[in-house]
C-alpha cells in the first residue's frame, strides 16, 4: 500500500512539474522511507534522478516496496486542478490499477482517478562519467543566462575555463555571453581539474533550468569536455539531479 497527504500542494506540484519536463511515463519505486524515480526522456537525451523522503509529506505511509508507473504529464494535469487551500491525499489502489487523488476543503471533497501503467522492465543505468570541472551557481543566474542564449540560438555552450564559468550561445541572430568570476555572488564554488566545455540543446536545458529552478535556489553543475552535464538542484529535502547529453558537431 502507498498513501501520502499534503496540506500545501504547491511544493509537491512544482517537483512533479520538474520531472514532467523530462519524463513522459515514469516508474516510481517506493519504500517506507522515500520515493524514487530514475528515468530518461523518450529520446534518451536527458535523465532525471529524483528522491523524496517521506518526511516531505504531512503523512507518508508505505508498506513493502510498491512500484508506481504513471504518465507524469497526465498526473501533473490532475495536480494542476488542485486548489492551494485543499488538503490532498494521494492513494495507490493496486487492485483497481488506479492512482486516486483526493482533495478536500471543509465539507467539499473532490476525487480524481488516473490509470497506472504496466511498469517497464528496463533498468535505467546512470552515466559513468569522470567530471573535470564543477560550478555551484544560483539558479537565478543560470536561468538568466539560458534566457539570454535562447534569443539567439537553439544551442548553448557551457564552459569552465581557468577562473571563469561561462554560458554562451551563437546563432544567426547574434550571440550572447555570460561570464562569472569567483568574485561573483552568483558563483558560489568553482572547481577546475581541467578546462571543460560542452554544447547542449537549449530547449532541454531551458526546460530543466526553469522547472527545477522553481524548486531550488542553487545548482551544482559538473562538466567534462563533450560529455553529458550533471546538474544537481539543491532542494530542501531529497535529491533532484539531471543528466543531459551534449550535442556534438553543432
Amino acid at each position, binding site marked *: 500500500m502507498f498513501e501520502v497527504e499534503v496540506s500545501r500542494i504547491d511544493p509537491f506540484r512544482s517537483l512533479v512539474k520538474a520531472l514532467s519536463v523530462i519524463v*513522459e*511515463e515514469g516508474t516510481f519505486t517506493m519504500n517506507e522511507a522515500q520515493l524514487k524515480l530514475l528515468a*530518461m*526522456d*523518450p*529520446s*534518451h*537525451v*536527458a*535523465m532525471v534522478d529524483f528522491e523524496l523522503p517521506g518526511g516531505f509529506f504531512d503523512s507518508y505511509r508505505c508498506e513493502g516496496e510498491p512500484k508506481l508507473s504513471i504518465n507524469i504529464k497526465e498526473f501533473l494535469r490532475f495536480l494542476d486542478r488542485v486548489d492551494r487551500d485543499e488538503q490532498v491525499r494521494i492513494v495507490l489502489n493496486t487492485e483497481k490499477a488506479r492512482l486516486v487523488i483526493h482533495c478536500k476543503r471543509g465539507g467539499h471533497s473532490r476525487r480524481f482517478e488516473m490509470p497506472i501503467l504496466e511498469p517497464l522492465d528496463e533498468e535505467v*543505468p*546512470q*552515466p*559513468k*562519467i569522470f567530471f573535470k570541472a564543477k560550478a555551484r551557481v544560483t539558479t537565478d543566474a543560470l536561468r538568466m543566462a539560458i534566457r539570454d542564449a535562447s534569443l539567439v540560438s*537553439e544551442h548553448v555552450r557551457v564552459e569552465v575555463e581557468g577562473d571563469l564559468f561561462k554560458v554562451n550561445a551563437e546563432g544567426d541572430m547574434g550571440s550572447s555571453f555570460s561570464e562569472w568570476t569567483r568574485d561573483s555572488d552568483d558563483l558560489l564554488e568553482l572547481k577546475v581539474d581541467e578546462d571543460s566545455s560542452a554544447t547542449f*540543446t*537549449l*530547449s*532541454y536545458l531551458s*526546460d530543466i533550468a526553469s522547472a527545477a529552478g522553481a524548486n531550488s535556489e542553487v545548482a551544482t553543475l559538473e562538466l567534462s569536455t563533450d*560529455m*553529458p552535464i550533471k546538474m544537481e538542484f539543491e532542494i530542501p529535502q531529497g535529491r533532484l539531479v539531471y*543528466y543531459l*547529453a*551534449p*550535442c*556534438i*558537431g553543432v
Partner: protein
Amino acid sequence: MGVKLGDLVEARKIAIDDLAGRAVAFDGNNILYQFLSIIRGRSGEPLRDQHGRVTSHLSGLIYRNSNLMEAGVKIVYVFDGRPHRFKRTVIKQRQETRKRAVKRYEKAVKEGDAEKARRYGQQAVLATTDIIEDAKTLLTHMGIPWVQAPGEGEAQTAYMAAKGDVWGAASQDFDSLLYGAPRHIRNLSITGRRKLPRKNVYIKIEPELLELDKIMRDLEISRDQLIDIGILVGTDYNPKGIRGVGPKTALKLVKEHGTLEGVIPHIKDAEFPHPVEEIRELFKNPRTTDDYSLEWSKPDTAAIIGFLCGEHSFSQSRVMNAVEKMNRGYARTSQKTTLDRFFG
C-alpha cells in the same frame, strides 16, 4: 476506403514514444479526411474561421502533429497525385455518397438532429484543393517535409518506407502493405479518444503497428498472394471485389490455388472491371517518384501564428502551446547524441 484486411492481420499495439526519432510518412489525403470527419463541433458541423472557411484539418494538423513532434516523431506528409483511371468507379461512387450525405446533413442540421448531422456530416467530407493547399502551407511553416506523389499517396509512402527513407507508412487504410511498405502504422493521426459510430460512446484508440514480413510469415503467403487476397476482397481499383468473398475466404482460396488466376475458375461470378494482372501490377509497380528531399526544419513561429491566428481565427495561446511542443520536438530530433553512449 482502401483494402479491408483488418480481419486477417494482427496488429501490435505501440506507444507514440516507440516512434521517437523515427521518420513516418503519412498518407496526407487520408489523414486530412480523418481530421475533417472527426474534428467537429458537438452538433456535427466542422470547425470554421470567422470567414466561414473550414479549419478542422488545420486544427488536426497543428495539434496532433505537435504532439507527435514533441514525442520526437519525424513526420513526412505525402499527398495524392492524379488517380489512376482504374479508380474512376470508386471516385464516382464516393462523389455520389457524398452528394447524398450533403443533402441529409443539411436536413439534419435544419431539424436539429445532432446525431444524424454528425453522421452525415462525416460522410459529406470533401478534401478540396483549398484544403490541401492550406495543409501544405501549414506543414511548410511547421518544418514538416511533404511530398507530392505522382499517383497514389499510399504507393509513395510505401515506396519511401521500402527504400528505408522512412521507418514506416501511416494511414488508416491497409493499402500501403499491398504496395510493399515493410511497416504500416494505424491510429497515429487521431487522438487517444474516438467516438463510436452512431453511439455517444468514446473508446480509447492506440497506435498499432503492422509488419509486412510478419503478416506474410503468419499467413504463410507471398506479397503477390497478399495482393491477390486484396483484389478478391476489393481494392480501390475493383471496389466490389468478389461477392461473398471476405478476407478469410480469400486467404483460404489463394493458399489453396496459389494465385488469383488459379482461384478464378473455382468461384462463381468472378468478374473484374479490369484485367487482374493489370490491377496486381498497379500494386507491384505503382507510379512513384524519387523527386523528394526529407529535411526537417525549425518551425517558423511567426508564420504559424500569422497563418492560424491571423487568417484562420485560432486561439493564439493554444497555438503557441503547440509551437513550443514542436520546438522541443525539433530540438530533440535534431540532437544526435544520446545518453546511452555514456553508460558504463
